[in-house]
C-alpha cells in the first residue's frame, strides 16, 4: 500500500515513514504545496497524510484540488490547528480523518489501518488472526468461531493494538485512544493496565493465545 506524506517538518515526516514502513506501507515524502500537487496528479496513493500549513500554500486548497479530480484515495489531515472549526472544515472538504499535532504514531497507524479497512473491504470486513476473528461491521470478536463477550473499550483497545501489530505502543497513547475527547485532561494512565489485563483474560479464557506482550509496563505490543 502506498502512502504520500505531505508535511514540511522533515523530522516528523521521517518518523512517520519509519513507523509506517514497519507495517509494510510504502511511504513517499514531499515538503511543499506544489510538490504535493504534482505528486497527487501523477501517481495514485492509497492514503495521503496532509499537513495544512505548507510552504507555498494551504493544505485545504490541495485537498479541494485532488477531491475535484475525483480521487478516491483516503486523506488524513495532520495539523497543528486543533480547533473544532478547523476539523469540521477539513472533513467537509472531503478528508476522511483529522489528527491534530502532536499525535502518537500508534494513533496515526491505527487510523490509517481502520481507514484502509473501510476503503478496501466494504462488505465483508473481517480480520482474521489464527484462531481470533474480528468482525468490524458487527463490532464483535470470536475465538475459534465462538463469540467472546467484550466491552466497548476492550474492543477499541484490541483494534488499536492490531492496528499497530508488531510495534510497541506506549501506555499514554493507549490511554489517549481510549479516552477520546477527555484524553487531553487525564494525567493518570494507570487505568490502561486494568483494561489490558481484562482483555487478556477474556481472550485466554476463550482459548486464544496471548499475543499481547508487556514492555516493562510502559508499553504493549501485539505480537504475531
Amino acid at each position, binding site marked *: 500500500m502506498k502512502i504520500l506524506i505531505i508535511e514540511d517538518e522533515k523530522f516528523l515526516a521521517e518518523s512517520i515513514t519509519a*513507523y509506517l514502513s514497519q507495517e509494510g506501507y510504502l511511504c513517499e515524502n514531499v515538503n511543499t504545496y506544489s510538490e504535493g500537487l504534482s505528486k497527487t496528479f501523477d501517481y495514485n496513493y492509497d492514503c495521503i497524510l496532509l499537513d495544512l500549513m505548507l510552504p507555498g500554500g494551504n493544505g485545504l486548497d490541495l485537498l479541494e484540488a485532488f477531491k475535484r479530480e475525483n480521487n478516491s484515495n483516503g486523506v488524513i489531515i495532520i495539523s497543528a490547528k*486543533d480547533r473544532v472549526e478547523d476539523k469540521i472544515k477539513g472533513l467537509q472538504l472531503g478528508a476522511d480523518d483529522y489528527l491534530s499535532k502532536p499525535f502518537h504514531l500508534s494513533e496515526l497507524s491505527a487510523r490509517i489501518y481502520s481507514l484502509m479497512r473501510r476503503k478496501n473491504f466494504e462488505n465483508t470486513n473481517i480480520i482474521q488472526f489464527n484462531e481470533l476473528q474480528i468482525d468490524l461491521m458487527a463490532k464483535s470478536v470470536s475465538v475459534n468461531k465462538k463469540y467472546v463477550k467484550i466491552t466497548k473499550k476492550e474492543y477499541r483497545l484490541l483494534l488499536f493494538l492490531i492496528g499497530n501489530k508488531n510495534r510497541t505502543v*506506549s501506555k*499514554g497513547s493507549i490511554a489517549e485512544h481510549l479516552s477520546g475527547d477527555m484524553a487531553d485532561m*487525564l494525567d493518570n494512565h494507570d*487505568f490502561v493496565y486494568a483494561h489490558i489485563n481484562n482483555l487478556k483474560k477474556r481472550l485466554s479464557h476463550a482459548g486464544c493465545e496471548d499475543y499481547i506482550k508487556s514492555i*516493562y509496563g510502559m508499553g504493549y505490543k501485539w505480537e504475531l
Partner: protein
Amino acid sequence: MRKLATKSLIYYSLFAILMLGLATPLFFWITQKLYLDDVDEAILLRQEEFLTDGTYTRLEDEDLQKWNAFSRDIKILPDTVKAAKGKIIQQVFYDKLADEFEPYRVLYREITVDGNKANLMIRINLVESKDLIQSILFIDGSILIILLLGFVLVTKVISDRLWKPFNQTLEYIAKFNLEKGEQPDFPPTTTLEFDRLNNSVDKLIGQNLKAFEREKEFTQNASHELQTPLAVIQSKLDIFLQNKNLTKEQAHILQQLYDATSRLYRINKNLLLLARLENFKFTQREKLHLVSILQDVLPYFHEQAEKKKLTIDTNFEYDTTIQTNKGQFEILVNNLILNAIRHNIKLGHITISLTKNQLVVANSGSTEALEADKLFKRFSRSTELAESSGLGLAISKKIADLNGFTIGYSFLKNEHIFTITF
C-alpha cells in the same frame, strides 16, 4: 470620602470665617479711634469757644453753683481735681437716669474765676462700646451667613454642571472591561482639562487593548509554534520505543520522557485554550442537561480515582438545565473533578452535588485550607504536583466568568469545596 466640591467649600468657609474674625476687631478698633478723634476734636473746639467767649471771667464765686446746675457738660469745679490737666482723658460718670456708669471723654484745665484758681471740665458722653460691638458683630454675622449661603449655592452649581463631564468619564472608566475589548466613546466636553483627561484616558485604554490583544495573539502563536516540535519529540519517542534491545533502565527513562512530553503538551494546550476563551462571543450556546453531562464523564473519573481508591458520591437533587456552551462547560466540570482527584488523599472521597442553581464538588485532601485568592490564578498551584498544568482552575474561572457563573472555594470540616453558581 467627601466630594471635591464639599472639600473646597470647607476651605472657602474656613477662609471666610477667618477673615471676618480678623476683620471684626480691626473694624471695631478703627471705628472707635475715628469716633474718639471726633469727640476729642469737639472737646477742644468747645474749650476754645469757652475761652474765647470769656463769659466765665465775669462770673463770681456764687454764680458757679448755678452755672454748674445748668451746664451739663462744661463745668467749673473748685481746684481740687487730681486728674491730669491739659489733655483729654477717659473717665466714667454715674448717670442717674439710666442708673449706670457711662464713659466720657474729659478735658480738665486750670482757669481763674473771680481771682481764684478753678478747674474747667469739658466732657462728652461716648456711645457705649458694647453697643458698637454688638452692631458690628450683627453686620459681620449677616455678611458671613450670606457668604456661606453663596458658597454652598455656587458649589452645588459647580459640582452639578461643571463636573458633569468628569463624572461621565469616571463612569465610563468604571464600566470598562479589558476582556470585552470595547473602546469607550467619551461624550465631547468644552472644558479644556476634561477634554485632555478624556483624550489621555482614551489613549491609555487604546494602548491597553492593543497590549492585551498582542498578549493573546502571542500566547496563541507561541503555543501554536510549539505544537510542531512537540509532535517531532513525541514521534521520535514512539520510534525509540520500537527499539528491540531496550533495557529496563532505558525504558524507565523513556517513560519519564513520555510523561514530561505529555505534561508539556497539556500545558501548551491549556495556554492555547485560555487565550482562545477570550473569543467567547463567537461561540455557540445550547441547552444543557447537567445530569447527563456529568454521567457521561463519570466513568472516566472512576478510572482516574482507581489508583487512590477514592469514593465518588453523586447527589443529583435536580436535573438542572442551563443555556451555555457545551465544550466549555465540560472543560469547567472536568477540571474541577480532576482537581478533586489529583489533590486527594488515599482512600479519600469526592462528593458531586447538583442543586437547582449550584454544582458543588467537595473533596478530602490536605488538612489546610488553600489560599483562596491565589487559587484561580495562572501557575499559582499550591502543591508541586507533577501532573498538574497549573492552569486548570484559571481556565475554570475564566469559563465561569465568561458564562456569567460564579465560582467559589471554601474549606469546611476538612473538605475542599468548589461551588459553581449558575
